[in-house]
């Protein structure tokens, strides 16, 4: 059953308490095996609620959930094949890192000790220290290690790098890519667009409890706005071309935003003497902002 989705939800609804807030209003989501799926949305949109339902920490009000082909509620054993990491990783602080990791490994049916040691040294973490004495970043490292140590077929990560510095975020991106290379499925909510751009195949954007859109990251990148700066040898001309917007002229410098194909702009520029041409990597962040805002209106 190679094509059983790693994650599938249908018409998933979650209401908290009697007459309480509705966190999910009918979420339909399918994540294929082997894919790296970015789950994005503003705070309170229902990202963590979805993830906690997938882990059977909370129960849906209605709708169906399948994780690795099984219902999480009636099949707790599937959790041995999931690596779960919450952004705010908390564990009893009176035990050492090694005690906790060994316990979790035992609960999942065992992990080779050298696998734990390998990850700990790769992440420069002292396993003999009590968790309570570690810094927030080092605690989050324990969270990362416990999620990846048993090489699970499915990783469910809820804003995993929120406690990590930029260097460790980069190391985390490498770890996710390595997992993807091994054919592991990754379902990751995130606010850090850089890591989403670097790791994900597809992204889904959730707003107010349901999916707004699902897109391939490449398609998004094509549509994303990139900032372009052109330096001329004389006063910059005002120009217009397909895909160009927000043109501003400042002496010899022209700044504009470009979406999609650059051909029309380049052909237009070719009629002038161009000293320098700077084009930034497209920022998906701005595109997401337009999605977030658009839906609010």
């Amino acid at each position, binding site marked *: 059953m190679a094509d059983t989705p790693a994650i599938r939800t249908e018409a998933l609804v979650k209401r908290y308490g009697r007459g309480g807030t509705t966190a999910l209003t009918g979420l339909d989501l399918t994540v294929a095996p082997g894919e790296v799926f970015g789950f994005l949305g503003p705070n309170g949109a229902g990202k963590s609620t979805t993830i906690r339902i997938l882990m059977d920490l909370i129960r849906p009000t209605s709708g169906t959930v399948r994780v690795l082909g099984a219902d999480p509620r009636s099949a707790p054993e599937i*959790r041995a094949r999931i690596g779960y990491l919450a952004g705010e990783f*908390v564990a*009893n602080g009176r035990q050492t890192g090694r005690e906790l990791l060994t316990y979790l490994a035992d*609960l999942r049916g065992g992990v080779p000790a050298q696998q734990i040691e390998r990850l700990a040294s790769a992440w420069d973490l002292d396993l003999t220290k009590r968790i309570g004495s570690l810094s927030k970043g080092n605690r989050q490292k324990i969270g990362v290690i416990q999620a990846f140590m048993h090489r699970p077929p499915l990783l469910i990560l809820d804003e995993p790098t929120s406690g990590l510095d930029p260097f460790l975020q980069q190391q985390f991106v490498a770890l996710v890519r390595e997992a993807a290379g091994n054919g592991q499925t990754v379902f990751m909510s995130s606010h850090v667009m850089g890591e989403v751009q670097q790791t994900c195949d597809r992204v889904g954007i959730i707003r107010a409890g349901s999916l707004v859109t699902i897109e391939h990251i490449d398609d998004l990148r094509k549509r994303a706005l990139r900032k372009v700066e052109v330096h001329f040898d004389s006063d910059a001309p005002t120009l217009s071309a397909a895909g160009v917007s927000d043109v501003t002229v400042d002496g010899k410098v022209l700044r504009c935003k470009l979406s999609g194909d650059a051909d029309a702009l380049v052909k237009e520029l070719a009629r002038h003497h161009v000293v320098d041409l700077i084009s930034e990597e497209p920022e998906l962040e701005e595109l997401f902002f337009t999605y977030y805002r658009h839906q609010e209106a």
Partner: protein
Amino acid sequence: MRVFWKTVRDNRRGWIGWIVALTAIAAMYASFYPSINKPAMADALNSFPQSLKEAFHLEDYTRPENYFAASVFGLLVPILVAVFAISAGVRAIAGDEEAGTLDLIQAQPVRRISLALQRLLAIVTAMAVLAGVMCLAVIALRGPAGFTALSPGRLFAICLQLALFGMLFAALAYGVGAWTGRRVLAIAAGAAVAVLGYLANTFFTQIHSLKWTERLSPFDWYLGGEPLKHGVQWGHAGLLAGFALLFAAAGTWRYNRRDITV
């Protein structure tokens, strides 16, 4: 049984501390017996008003079964056992949940019921070990402290009922915590039953209209049948164990169905 052993391991220092301290208190009271067993003491007691004697269950302390029921196994020990049991029971689910650390463990391949019951079982075991150690310590003092009139069987009987008494409070705090996920509610329920149960067994007995409450008190189920004189009171033991099972079952049932709070 991994959760069971991990619970024992995580709590070993605290639990051993409680067991040592409570055994020391019981042993201390027991070793005072020779200084009580004097005629002057009996005269002093006889001068107290009858109602006060009833409220505090003061009787002829020169008889070891009376002295032990009031001192060693009376006042301080059951109250401290209840405190120990409530604090352990609260932490099993509600304390862990409010600290945010339950999420990680429950995201492992362990069924909710299995996790909860293994933790409760660890606490029940701690109560049994506590009563067992205390029982052995007091039995060992029979010769040195001169209360050989009290048979080991009778001492075992009261320790058994003490263990069940502790399990009742542990199960109550566990059950309310597992049902609600809230520490403060679990503590409040345990404390309310302990305080009301204590009052029902002491001062309420002096108020005619409230005298019936004594029969509902866990303190009465523990000590009221005078196990030091009459051996194990199976009816009372059944009440203690039965309510413990009821609280444990209700809490576990609800915990298996509800959301784990963040």
